[in-house]
C-alpha cells in the first residue's frame, strides 16, 4: 500500500514536471516533423485540387503581384488588394503556403527543430480557424504586408535609407574601441566646456567689477586709479580670451559628438567635422588678434573681431547641430517603423490563436499616424537645413535654421506621442493574452518568407 502511494506521488510529480515544460520545447503533439509537414502539404494539395487549379494560379498571381517590390505605390496597393479579394479557403491556403515557405527556411535557424515545431503549431491553428477568424487574420495579414512593403521602401528613402537593419539601424559602424574612445572624448569635451563656461563667467564678473572701479576713478589720477586702469586691460583681454575659449570648447563638444554619433553616415560626419574645423580656425584667428592686442583701442577692436567671427559661425553651427539632432530623430523613426511591422506580426499571430485584436489595431493605427507625423516633420526639417546651408543671406539662413529646429521639436513631440501609445499597445497585447507572442523570439524563417512576398523582382529572380 505504501509503495503504491509512493509510486502515485512520484508519478504525480513527474507528470507535473512534464506539463511544466514549455510547448515550444517538448511540443504538444507526437509524431515526426516530416510526417506533420507531409500531412499539411497533402491537405493543401487536396484543397487546391478540390477547388480547381485556378485557385492555385490565383494565389500564385497574388504572391507574384505582391513580389513586385519596386512598382509604384498604387500598384502595390492593388496587389495587396488581390490578396484581400481571396475567399476564405483561398486565403487559408495562401497562409499555409506562406508558413510552409517559412518552414522550408527553418534550417537557417539556430534551433531549426523549434522553428519547425512552431510553424507546425501555427499551421494547425490556421487549419482550424473559423471563417470569422480567417477574415480577421486576412485583414491583419494585409496590414502586415503593407507595413513590410513600407519598410522595404524605406531602404531606398533618401533620408532614412542610410540606417541599415543589419547594422542595428545605425548609419555607420564605428569599431567598438574607436567608439569607446570617441564617447570618452565626448564626455571630456563636455567637462571642458563646463570649465570654460565657468572661466568665462568668472572673468566677465571680474571685468565688470574692475569696470565699476574705473568709473569711480573718473577724474582721479592717483597711483591706485592708474593701477586700476592698467588692470582693466588685462581683465578685458582675459575676458575676451575666455569668450573665445568658451566658443572653442563648445565647437570641440559638437565635433566630439559627431565623432561618436553612429546615426550620421561617414560622409555626413566628415562634412560636419570639416565645417566645424573651419569654425574653430576662425575663432583661433580671432583669439590671436586678442592675444596681440595691447592698448584699449586694440582690445576693443579685438572684441569686435571675436564678435564678428561668432556671428559668422553661429548660423552655420545652427544648421550643423540641426543635422546632428535630425540624425538622432531619424534613428528613432526607423526603429519605430520597424516596430510597426513587428506589431502587425504579433497581431497576426494573436489572430491565428483566435484572439480578437480589433481594439489593439485602433491603437496601432494611432501609433502609426503619430510616427508618420514625426517622419513628415523630420523630412521638412531636413529640407529647411538644406535650404539654410545653400542660402548666402545670413538672415534667411537664420530664419530657415530656426524653422528647421522648430520642425525637429515637432517631430520629437510626435515621437513622444508614439512612445506613449506604444506603452498602451504593449499593455493591451499582454492583457488580451498575447504576451507570449510579444515575447516570442523573432522568427527569422518567417521574416524571410514574408520578405519574399515583398522582394523586388530582380532579387526574387536571383533567389529563384
Amino acid at each position, binding site marked *: 500500500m505504501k509503495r503504491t502511494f509512493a509510486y502515485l506521488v512520484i508519478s504525480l510529480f513527474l507528470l507535473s514536471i512534464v*506539463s511544466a515544460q514549455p510547448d515550444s520545447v517538448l511540443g504538444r503533439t507526437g509524431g515526426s516533423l516530416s510526417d506533420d509537414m507531409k500531412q499539411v502539404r497533402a491537405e493543401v494539395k487536396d484543397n487546391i485540387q478540390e477547388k480547381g487549379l485556378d485557385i492555385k494560379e490565383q494565389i500564385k498571381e497574388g504572391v507574384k503581384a505582391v513580389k513586385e517590390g519596386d512598382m509604384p505605390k498604387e500598384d502595390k496597393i492593388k496587389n495587396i488588394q488581390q490578396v484581400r479579394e481571396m475567399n476564405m479557403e483561398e486565403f487559408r491556403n495562401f497562409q499555409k503556403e506562406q508558413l510552409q515557405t517559412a518552414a522550408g527556411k527553418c534550417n537557417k535557424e539556430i534551433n531549426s527543430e523549434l522553428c519547425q515545431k512552431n510553424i507546425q503549431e501555427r499551421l494547425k491553428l490556421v487549419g482550424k480557424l473559423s471563417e470569422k477568424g480567417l477574415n480577421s487574420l486576412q485583414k491583419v495579414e494585409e496590414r502586415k504586408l503593407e507595413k513590410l512593403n513600407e519598410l522595404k521602401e524605406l531602404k531606398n528613402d533618401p533620408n532614412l535609407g542610410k540606417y541599415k537593419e543589419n547594422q542595428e539601424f545605425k548609419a555607420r559602424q564605428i569599431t567598438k574601441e574607436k567608439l569607446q574612445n570617441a564617447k570618452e572624448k565626448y564626455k571630456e569635451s563636455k567637462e571642458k566646456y563646463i570649465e570654460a563656461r565657468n572661466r568665462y563667467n568668472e572673468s566677465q564678473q571680474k571685468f565688470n567689477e574692475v569696470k565699476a572701479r574705473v568709473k569711480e576713478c573718473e577724474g582721479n589720477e592717483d597711483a591706485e586709479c592708474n593701477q586700476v586702469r592698467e588692470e582693466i586691460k588685462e581683465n578685458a583681454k582675459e575676458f575676451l580670451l575666455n569668450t573665445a575659449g568658451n566658443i572653442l570648447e563648445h565647437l570641440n563638444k559638437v565635433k566630439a559628438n559627431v565623432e561618436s554619433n553612429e546615426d550620421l553616415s561617414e560622409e555626413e560626419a566628415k562634412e560636419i567635422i570639416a565645417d566645424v574645423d573651419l569654425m574653430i580656425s576662425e575663432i583661433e584667428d580671432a583669439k590671436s588678434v586678442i592675444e596681440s592686442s595691447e592698448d584699449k583701442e586694440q582690445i576693443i577692436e579685438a572684441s569686435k573681431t571675436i564678435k564678428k567671427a561668432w556671428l559668422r559661425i553661429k548660423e552655420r553651427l545652427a544648421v550643423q547641430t540641426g543635422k546632428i539632432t535630425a540624425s538622432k530623430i531619424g534613428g528613432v523613426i526607423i526603429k519605430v517603423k520597424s*516596430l510597426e511591422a*513587428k506589431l502587425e506580426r504579433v497581431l497576426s499571430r494573436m489572430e491565428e490563436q483566435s484572439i480578437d485584436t480589433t481594439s489593439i489595431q485602433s491603437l496601432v493605427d494611432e501609433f502609426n499616424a503619430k510616427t508618420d507625423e514625426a517622419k513628415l516633420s523630420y523630412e521638412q526639417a531636413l529640407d529647411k537645413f538644406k535650404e539654410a546651408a545653400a542660402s548666402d543671406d545670413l538672415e534667411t539662413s537664420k530664419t530657415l535654421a530656426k524653422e528647421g529646429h522648430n520642425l525637429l521639436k515637432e517631430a520629437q513631440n510626435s515621437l513622444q506621442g508614439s512612445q506613449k501609445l506604444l506603452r498602451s499597445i504593449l499593455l493591451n497585447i499582454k492583457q488580451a493574452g498575447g504576451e507570449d507572442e510579444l515575447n516570442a523570439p523573432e522568427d527569422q524563417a518567417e521574416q524571410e518568407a514574408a520578405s519574399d512576398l515583398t522582394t523586388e523582382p530582380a532579387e526574387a529572380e536571383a533567389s529563384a
Partner: protein
Amino acid sequence: MIKMMKNIILMALLLSIVAIGCQKQAASPVTAPEATDASAIESGMSDIDSVNADLNTQELDSIESDLDKIDW
C-alpha cells in the same frame, strides 16, 4: 496508516507546488525582443534630449551683448 497518508498527500501537494513554480519560471522569458525594441526607442528619445541639451547654443547667446559692454 492515516498519518502516513497525510504525509504522502502533503508531499504530493508540496511537489505539485514546486512543479507549478517551475512551470511559471519556464514560461517567463528572460529576454523580450519587443520590449527591447520599446526600450531602444525610449533610450533613443532620451538620447535626443541629451543631444539637444549638449548642442544648445542658448548659453552662448549672451556673448554678443557681453562683448558690446567691453568698452570702459
